[in-house]
């Protein structure tokens, strides 16, 4: 059952495209990790999926299939439709849990706002539900928490509050843009466990953006690697961590030993060189300047397509590399 089908998603802000022909799909309840170096376009892509960028900046489509069978194109959503979808069918949590909450309203006021918008709950009922939600995300004393302003909470508690607000409308899809990056390691692991348990309970799908391959390996069902605005590998997590096919993925994993068991804070390893800026991309493979397996042809002359190399009929393991077959031998 497909939850989200993204086709040819592109974003530009008047200049060269930041996100370029991104296509992937995900199933209900699936957790997809979107990984890539800084500047690869992860945040921009996720904002486009939320309909939070101007419609003139976004091309392509992102069809979300709702629980009731209706379909809506997140890339082309009108601002009126968007209000009916955001918070209710799609929610998002962000990296910095301090600045993501209104500093001058209490947690209670901010939660009641969302509950009245999406669940029609007011007064005592909203209060009760808010307590229930905070309890669900592991806040020990929800009643006291509701009376506080964000400043009084720790980073981990703030992120829990934001998660509670994001799941209040029982969304089918949660986008999480580096939700644990600002937290210390133990808290990071707690929040990841919380997200996994929420998925198990409610079956919501999740797009989890991260720099951190250890985090990706501990939470994801699929891994999608973004490089210079393009998807360069899209694989089931097992296959990705066991046998990545794209040289960029290999380089990432090769430089990050022992990632699969750690709930650790290891960030994406440093590779030589940098992601080319949107205006400085050649005609060929965008990874070519940094690739050890690069050959002038085809690498510098032709942009490789994103090919599905999976054996099974219904499986997807897509790779964007002109030499993947040679390299696999």
């Amino acid at each position, binding site marked *: 059952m497909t939850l989200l089908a993204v086709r040819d998603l592109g974003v530009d802000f008047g200049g060269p495209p930041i996100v370029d022909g991104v296509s992937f799909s995900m199933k209900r309840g699936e957790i997809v990790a979107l990984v890539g170096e800084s500047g690869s376009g992860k945040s921009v892509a996720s904002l486009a999926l*939320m309909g*939070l960028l101007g419609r003139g900046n976004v091309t392509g489509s992102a069809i979300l299939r709702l629980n009731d069978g209706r379909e809506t194109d997140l890339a082309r959503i009108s*601002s009126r439709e*968007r*209000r*009916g*979808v*955001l*918070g*209710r069918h799609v*929610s*998002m949590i*962000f990296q*910095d849990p301090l*600045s*993501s*909450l*209104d*500093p*001058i*309203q*209490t947690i209670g006021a901010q939660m009641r*706002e*969302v509950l009245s*918008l*999406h669940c029609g709950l007011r007064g005592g009922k909203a209060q009760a539900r808010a307590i229930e939600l905070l309890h669900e995300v592991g806040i020990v004393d929800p009643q006291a928490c509701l009376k506080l*302003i964000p*400043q009084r909470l720790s980073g981990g508690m703030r992120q829990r509050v*934001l998660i509670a*607000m*994001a799941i209040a*409308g029982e969304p089918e899809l949660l986008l999480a843009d580096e939700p644990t990056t600002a937290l210390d390691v133990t808290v990071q692991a707690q929040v990841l466990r919380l997200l996994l348990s929420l998925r198990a309970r409610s079956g919501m799908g999740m797009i989890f953006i991260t720099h951190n391959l250890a985090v990706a390996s501990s939470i994801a069902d699929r891994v999608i690697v973004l490089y210079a605005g393009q998807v360069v590998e899209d694989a089931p997590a097992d296959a990705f961590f066991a046998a990545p096919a794209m040289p960029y993925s290999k380089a990432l994993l090769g430089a990050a030993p022992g990632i699969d068991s750690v709930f650790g804070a290891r960030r994406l390893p440093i590779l030589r060189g940098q992601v080319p800026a949107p205006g400085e991309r050649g005609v060929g493979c965008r990874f070519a300047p940094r690739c050890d397996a690069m050959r002038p042809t085809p690498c510098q002359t032709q942009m490789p397509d994103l090919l599905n190399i999976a054996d099974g009929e219904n499986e997807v393991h897509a790779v964007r590399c002109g030499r993947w077959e040679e390299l696999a031998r």
Partner: protein
Amino acid sequence: MAEGLFAFAARRAGVNVLLLMLVSLTGFMLLHATPGGPLAQFSLSPGMTTERLNQIAHSMGLDQPLWLQYVKWLGGLLKGDWGHSYRDHAPVLSIIVAHLGATVELGLASLVISFLGGLAMGLIGALRAGEAIDALCSLVGVILLSLPTFWLGLVFIYFLSVRTGWFPAGGLMAPGDASASDRLRHLALPAMTLGLVSIPVWGAYVRAFAGDTLNQDHIRTARALGVPGWRIVLRRVLPAALLPLIPIAGVYLPTLLSGALVTETVFTWPGVGRLFLDSLQYRDYPVALGVLMFSAVLVLICSLAAELLHHAADPRLRA
């Protein structure tokens, strides 16, 4: 928390007393340093003799040492005896209070105009940042800011009073007419004059504070959670923009007392600004000094009140 607030208030009160001492000393010294000194008013009268002048000086205690005069004057201030006008011998404090009503009336009316205008202008600019309407707002702001108050007042008087007769050209009320509508008609032009020129000041603050807030992450979070735009403006942007305006208002409010000087003159509005100007003209030093001290006290009271209010209104400061 209550203790923190108390300590804060006490500390501020201490600083304020020092400031008041400084203002009073400077004012007193300036007065005695002016050519002619406090007696200038009397020495100008025709047929005045040195003998008579000395008599007056003696009766007013002006022949005593300066420091003693200052201490006596200061003691009087504390007891509520602010001296007597040279012109009609009325107590200074009651003269000031008699002029205060008109100034407060004009000040508040102009504040409502400038604040609401500035709020609208600032919010529009922030919400439509970079668009044509934002540029238009800034342009209108610059124009309003560059208008000389007296010129604007004269333009209003010419077009809305002399030419059309819609509004009276000056004064507090028509003689013998105590109706509210008459007072409002008299208030309209001076309040508009004083209000309009202050709109861009509030507008710039609101534009900056609202713009800052709109760029914050929590606005994006609210949008990502489907909170409608008008609600975001009402519940998040507006309160965040208003809070830092409280201390600014505390500084701004007392300046209306003296800042209305030009407007009060153009519209012959019998307020404290006019009183100050007149008392200087007549060399009525006790009144001039009184107004000076009165504004100083007001400045301190307003800024202290504003800070206390800010503390009470902003939950982040109630740690």
